């Protein structure tokens, strides 16, 4: 999935490879299902591809019925970036039982998004539910809420919610009032208090709203769910970087999520039901797009002396 050349052709190859492994992927389907159901054509090539359909079944489809996905490959203009990818509603599932605080996700995130060490789009927290319960690690991203308190309060529409569920910020629009930071109950946002890290290096890079790079002084920055990767059909940076299989990422509309470490695709509803998945601060009514699986393994985590550092 490190493919940089992203022509429709290479995508096809990727789909074939992926499909024949019988895995199916979040990145696969939206454009596919449509063409699968189009049975009036009779162009059978005899070459079969295995896909995961919306009912969670693996089906074999003739490769001729698969249209190429040009519409997903629209140029990455920032006006396009405000709309969101069609047919998608992205979700992240964090399996707390697997997190061992490797922090590869944090490192990758900070490196990719031009962040200083004290700026977090993603922060691995040590949580303790009560005095006598064991601590556990909890990676915390922007929750990409469906009722986002930050988007409501923005006076200039700099931060916005896309049709695919992603909450982004346009740092060419942001006036730096920081109302969104005050409004966010998850403390998920960060501000460029100074000139951003490596500003010199990035000064000629064109602004990509889906990556929020280059960062700009005096503006707010936040987790983008790696919208730039998603547009290319890849998993988010943090999800791919995890060595411990903590993250599942996928499309809620397809009820499918893919583990970033193992590449295994499972049913979202099944995963959440079997593991008693939950969301953070459900009572606030923010309706997050990030789900957590309980930290069943927490006894193995050594007691943390100072959780406030």
């Amino acid at each position, binding site marked *: 999935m490190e493919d940089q050349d992203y022509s429709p052709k290479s995508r096809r190859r990727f789909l074939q490879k992926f499909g024949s492994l019988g895995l199916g992927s979040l990145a696969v389907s939206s454009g596919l299902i449509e063409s699968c159901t189009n049975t009036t054509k009779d162009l059978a090539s005899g070459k079969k591809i295995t896909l995961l359909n919306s009912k969670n079944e693996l089906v074999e489809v003739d490769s001729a019925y698969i249209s190429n996905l040009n519409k997903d490959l629209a140029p990455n203009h920032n006006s396009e970036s405000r709309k969101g990818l069609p047919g998608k509603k992205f979700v992240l599932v964090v399996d707390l039982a697997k997190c061992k605080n490797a922090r590869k996700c944090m490192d990758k995130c900070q490196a990719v998004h031009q962040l200083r060490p004290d700026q977090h789009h993603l922060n691995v927290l040590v949580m303790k539910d009560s005095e006598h319960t064991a601590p556990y690690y909890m990676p915390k991203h922007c929750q990409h809420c469906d009722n986002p308190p930050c988007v409501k*309060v923005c*006076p*200039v*529409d700099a931060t916005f919610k896309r049709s695919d569920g992603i909450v982004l910020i346009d740092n060419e629009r942001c006036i730096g009032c920081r*109302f969104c*930071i005050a409004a966010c*109950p998850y403390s998920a946002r960060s501000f460029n208090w100074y000139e951003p890290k490596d500003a010199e290096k990035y000064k000629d890079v064109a602004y990509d709203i889906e990556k929020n790079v280059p960062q700009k002084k*005096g503006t707010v920055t936040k987790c983008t769910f790696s919208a730039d990767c998603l547009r290319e059909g890849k998993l988010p940076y943090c999800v791919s970087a995890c060595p411990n299989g903590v993250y599942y990422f996928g499309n809620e509309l397809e009820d499918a999520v893919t583990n970033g470490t193992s590449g295994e695709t499972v049913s979202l509803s099944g995963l959440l039901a079997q593991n008693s998945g939950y969301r953070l601060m459900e009572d606030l009514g923010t309706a997050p797009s990030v789900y957590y699986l309980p930290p069943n393994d927490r006894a193995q985590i050594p007691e943390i002396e100072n959780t*406030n550092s």
Partner: protein
Amino acid sequence: MTDLYRKEKQHKKEQLQELVADLTSPMNHTNSNFKLWIGFLLVLIAVAGVFYVRQIMQGLGTTDMRDIASWGLYISNFVFLIAVSLVGSLITAILKLSNQQWATPLTRIAEIIAVAALFSALAIIVVDMGRPDRLWHIFVYGRLQSPIVWDILVVNTYLVISLLLLYLPMIPDIALLRKNMGHKPKWQQKMYKTLSLGWQGTEDQFKILNLSMTILMVLIIPVALSIHTVTSWLFASTLRPGWDSTIFGPYFVAGAFMVGAAAVIVTMYIIRVNYKFKEYITDFHFDTMGKLLVLTSLVYLYFNLNEFMVPAYKMKSGESAHILGLLVGDYALMFWLVQILGMILPILLMVFKPFRKPLPLLIISVFIVIGAFFKRYLIVTPTLLHPFLPVQNYPASYHHYSPTASESMIVIGSIAGIALVISLFIKLFPIIPIWETAHEKGFDNEILNNS
């Protein structure tokens, strides 16, 4: 008979001349202390300006605000200034509409405080912006669902009405100045001429003036309540413990009336002593303002009880860290000093008449104003330092917020700006309304127009 009449008329005219001379005396006598004072204020403003330029160049990192405490002294100062500005409507509109004649000499003081505080509030909110160069985005991309946009709308509306309420009743006075300030520099005379709008003092003109004033006074009351209610919603519209409160609107408005009344008392004391206005700003005024201050403080005390007692009783998770921080934690010292010295003790003292004498009342009012400033600080800062999720993987300094010298000096500069506007205003215009005072003293328009 005609002789007697003429004599009496002459006598009245002399009395009026005396009154005008009295009330314009601050404009005619400028000593070196005043120049020193203005110089001092200008230095403070210049220092603030230098720090602000540095902030623009280096970013808001020159403040102690960071990702956790992302609002600080600037925003609390903004809330404080908006609160102070509310007094314009209290003294000018509410008291006047309820026929409280005694407040007449105080109306212009209250109104100039309101206008100066509003300008300063608008400046400080721009100072707080990460990208002041994009201020125009608000007008181009502004979205009505953001409380910031509501705030901008109502604050500017309030500013316009306040300016009119300051200016309109001043027109007859300016017309008087036009005739009496022949010894002033040319630009100043020209200014009076332009600003008096050709005022002749006819019955019709007075009629129009009074009607416009009444309309504005009625208009400003809901707008005044809105500015502080909407400002409180900047906080109350979030889910944060300590801000997520339904009484924030009236709680802020009550607090604003309290600090505003105290600010007027401080200013009227300084003016009375400095310009020997004992005759016009009397002990009675202080006594009555003291009573008004007790009333507004009691209302505020009631809201404080609701705001802190009820959550402290329940100790809801999320809310408890915040409330404990205030009552017994990091902010306890400041909290109790503010509550006791800035509210409870003043109420207890002001109930007794001797404490409503000018000097004691001044001291009490100074405590209330300072307390009110820190109260706004306590509303803004501790909440942000106690988010729902633990503060981790940040430098140790992120757990605290203490304003930097740069922030403090900029805020001091913003207060100095208010003092400067008021001081210069006193030198250019009569701070106590001349024609209203004259009317109340029984001079009719005919004499006024001919003087």
